[in-house]
């Protein structure tokens, strides 16, 4: 005889941050070239461990997400490698800047390639505007005393213009090997 049970106690969750709202058309006023230049700058700041410069790219409603198991389950109901809001990004940066975040002290030597950049569409944001959504591939080479690690993934970004500057509102990195055990990820992927 089959047992009838229903999963109970699921708290009400907000829509998933990645696909919980409709993908709109690419908003007006964006050039592929300037988008790419922004992504390359973000990559360089991360590669060079310029924590202040990197943190300054983010909007106040930032989401920085590195799931496990492919695209991941809902990040408020299941664990992720990283799921930071603006506050937690700030904490992460303060920690690493103490110089005693041992997983990044000394910092990793890093270089990454961002490629296959595509303008995918737009997503409505909480401020009533529409962020541009961009997909890209990333391949990062990390060197630490423990050895070298090659990190590959697909990154989805959302960008917004704030006071004439391009800012980063959302970044999700789906690591190619996120269904396996991965080593310490101390740097900014």
């Amino acid at each position, binding site marked *: *005889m*089959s047992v*009838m*049970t*229903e*999963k109970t106690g699921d708290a009400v969750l907000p829509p998933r941050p990645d696909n919980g709202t409709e993908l709109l058309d690419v908003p007006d006023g964006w050039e592929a070239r300037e988008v790419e230049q922004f992504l390359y700058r973000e990559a360089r700041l991360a590669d060079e461990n310029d924590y202040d410069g990197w943190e300054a790219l983010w909007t106040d409603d930032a989401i920085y997400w590195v799931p496990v198991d492919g695209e991941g389950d809902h990040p408020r109901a299941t664990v992720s490698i990283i799921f930071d809001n603006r506050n937690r990004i700030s904490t992460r940066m303060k920690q690493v800047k103490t110089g005693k975040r041992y997983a990044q002290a000394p910092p990793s030597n890093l270089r990454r390639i961002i490629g296959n950049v595509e303008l995918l569409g737009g997503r409505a944001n909480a401020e009533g505007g529409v962020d541009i959504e961009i997909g890209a591939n990333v391949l990062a080479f990390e060197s630490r005393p423990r050895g070298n690690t090659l990190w590959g993934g697909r990154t989805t970004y959302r960008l917004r213009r704030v006071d004439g500057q391009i800012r980063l509102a959302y970044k999700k990195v789906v690591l190619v090997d996120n269904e396996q055990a991965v080593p310490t990820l101390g740097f900014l992927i």
Partner: protein
Amino acid sequence: MTEIHPAGQVIESEFASVAVKLDETGNSVRLRVEDLRTGRVRFLDALELESLVWLADGHLTQLLDPSHERWRG
């Protein structure tokens, strides 16, 4: 004939009434089948369903013999 029922889509004749729906409470999707006349429920997974599809007509007919399981006597 189908109608909306909390237990799923209803498959009904003058002899039997069952509701079927996809159930996603397990670690992968299953078919939930409810005998609406008794409330008895059976879940069928993909491999079981595939096996049903390949069941020879004769074997399926044997299952319909009322003394086969339910009214074994």
